[in-house]
């Protein structure tokens, strides 16, 4: 479990007339065993925020501190597409991001492959797996380094509804089991309500517009009346803020 502190975060792309503000003066405090979703319309800076938090991009200004018991926290990342090395087997893809290849590490990788129902697919190449299976490998890879905080960038947006539903259930079970801090970007409000403790709403221009607590017990069934009401209330806030999302 990590503590995340974001102060006056600002990010711009381009210069002069081509300058685009991706994030504008974002301030946040997150921490503990929480599942936080970031939602908003396309181009509101959701993925940029995640890339800055994970160190893929640097901010134009501002401070980001991600710590675990006072030390720098170890991050894991699940991407929109699985981003597996196609020339390496499933097990080797997990081993690629590890610090060593000891028996203990292999056993840990195998454990997470089993958690995503792919325990018998370690010797397969990614090209031999379906899109859903590849995304499962991506999730297992992120968990296998036992990160303090896990960043997920619309990981289920490329999948069909049934596969996405099944993976959401698996992900939530893994989150509950491993007590990680998860920061999850999505454009799907229903998905955010189903999975999250908190929903951060971003608007175009990279402004953090709202911070909503979803105080419902897990697991959440999308057809449950309370979940449906929560989703409707979040969508109402979107309308109030004049945001267009699915």
């Amino acid at each position, binding site marked *: 479990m990590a503590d995340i502190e974001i102060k006056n975060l600002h990010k711009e792309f381009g210069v002069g007339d081509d300058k685009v503000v991706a994030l504008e003066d974002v301030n946040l405090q997150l921490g503990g065993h929480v599942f936080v979703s970031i939602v908003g319309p396309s181009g509101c800076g959701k993925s940029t925020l995640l890339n800055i938090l*994970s*160190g*893929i991009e640097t901010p134009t200004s501002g401070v980001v501190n991600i710590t675990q018991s006072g030390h720098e926290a*170890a*991050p*894991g*990342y699940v*991407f929109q*597409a699985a*981003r597996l*090395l*196609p*020339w*390496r087997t499933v097990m080797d893809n997990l081993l*690629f*991001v590890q610090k060593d290849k000891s028996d203990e590490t292999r056993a840990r990788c195998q454990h997470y492959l089993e958690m995503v129902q792919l325990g018998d697919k370690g010797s397969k*190449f*990614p*090209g*031999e797996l379906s899109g859903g299976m590849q995304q499962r490998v991506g999730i297992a*890879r992120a968990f296998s*380094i036992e990160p303090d905080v896990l*960043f997920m960038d619309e990981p289920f947006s490329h999948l069909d509804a049934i596969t996405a539903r099944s993976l959401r259930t698996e992900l939530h079970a893994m989150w509950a089991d491993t007590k990680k801090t998860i920061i999850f970007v999505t454009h799907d409000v229903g998905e955010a309500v189903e999975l999250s403790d908190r929903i951060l709403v971003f608007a175009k221009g990279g402004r953090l517009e709202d911070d909503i607590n979803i105080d419902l017990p897990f697991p959440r069934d999308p057809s449950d009346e309370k979940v449906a009401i929560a989703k409707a209330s979040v969508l109402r806030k979107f309308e109030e803020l004049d945001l267009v999302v699915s």
Partner: protein
Amino acid sequence: MTTHTAPRKTSPRRHTTQAPLIVRFVKSPKFARFLFPWAVLVFWLIGNKLIQDSWDFDSSVLATPREVWDFMWAEITNDTVAPDNVYRTFGISLRRLGVGFAIAMFLGTLIGLGMGLSKAINAFFHDWVMALLAMPALAWALFLSLIFGFDNRGPTIAVILAGIPFVIVNIREGVRSTPRELFDMSGAFNVPRAKTVRHVLLPSLFPFMFAAARYAFSIGWKGLVIAELFGGQDGAGWTMKFWYDAHRLHGVIGYSMFFVILALFIENVVLEPISRRVFKWRPALTGPDVVEEEFQHELDVASGAGTL
């Protein structure tokens, strides 16, 4: 009201009835490959006959398949009037090719990597690489024979100059099309740079390096033969010229056949197994027989034969 639904499109394979064994054999790629040399042989014999019947000249200069075979057998059994036998001749040429090929791959990879990674290096080499690509091997052969005379250096450098631009261009394009998203992934997981280069950059370059090697080998081989022909005193190119000067067409054709056999050997026994091993991670491609089946299915559907 009657509603019509479109016939459900299912896998073409399920609809295709199995053709008789003989038909499948005749239509198979293996049979087509087997058939080609025999078709060439028939065409050769008919061509010889037609020329002899319709053209008034000394038809003895035309080589028959039998003469070519006898020549090749004599060469194989070391019964030759040429200064060197076929083994020594190809040994000399292959040594030159091997050295030139290795240097072309090494230098070409270095320059290609530089051009792919740096705009300044790309700008520095770009025009010269294009000039090298456009330069005919014949020009190198004449130029190098004037500089180095008739020793090993001219033909070896001809291999380098003929092959290196293809290596450079392939490696440069390989670097430009490296999967950036995989580098981001490595960065997000704090994978060390050296490990990323070894496991992400190099494997992503393999298909381009393989294409570069194939080009450098085949183009370099052609450059070598021309260089030996004009500026050599031994080797395969020079020996072809020896038989040409002796007015022995069967010698020229026979030596060409040795080239063909060597090229097929290298392709099927060396390159193809390496390619299969290195690229075993690639999903199986749709073979020509499958495409043909699908095309046949489309025809069946169009004519109503494939639907119920």
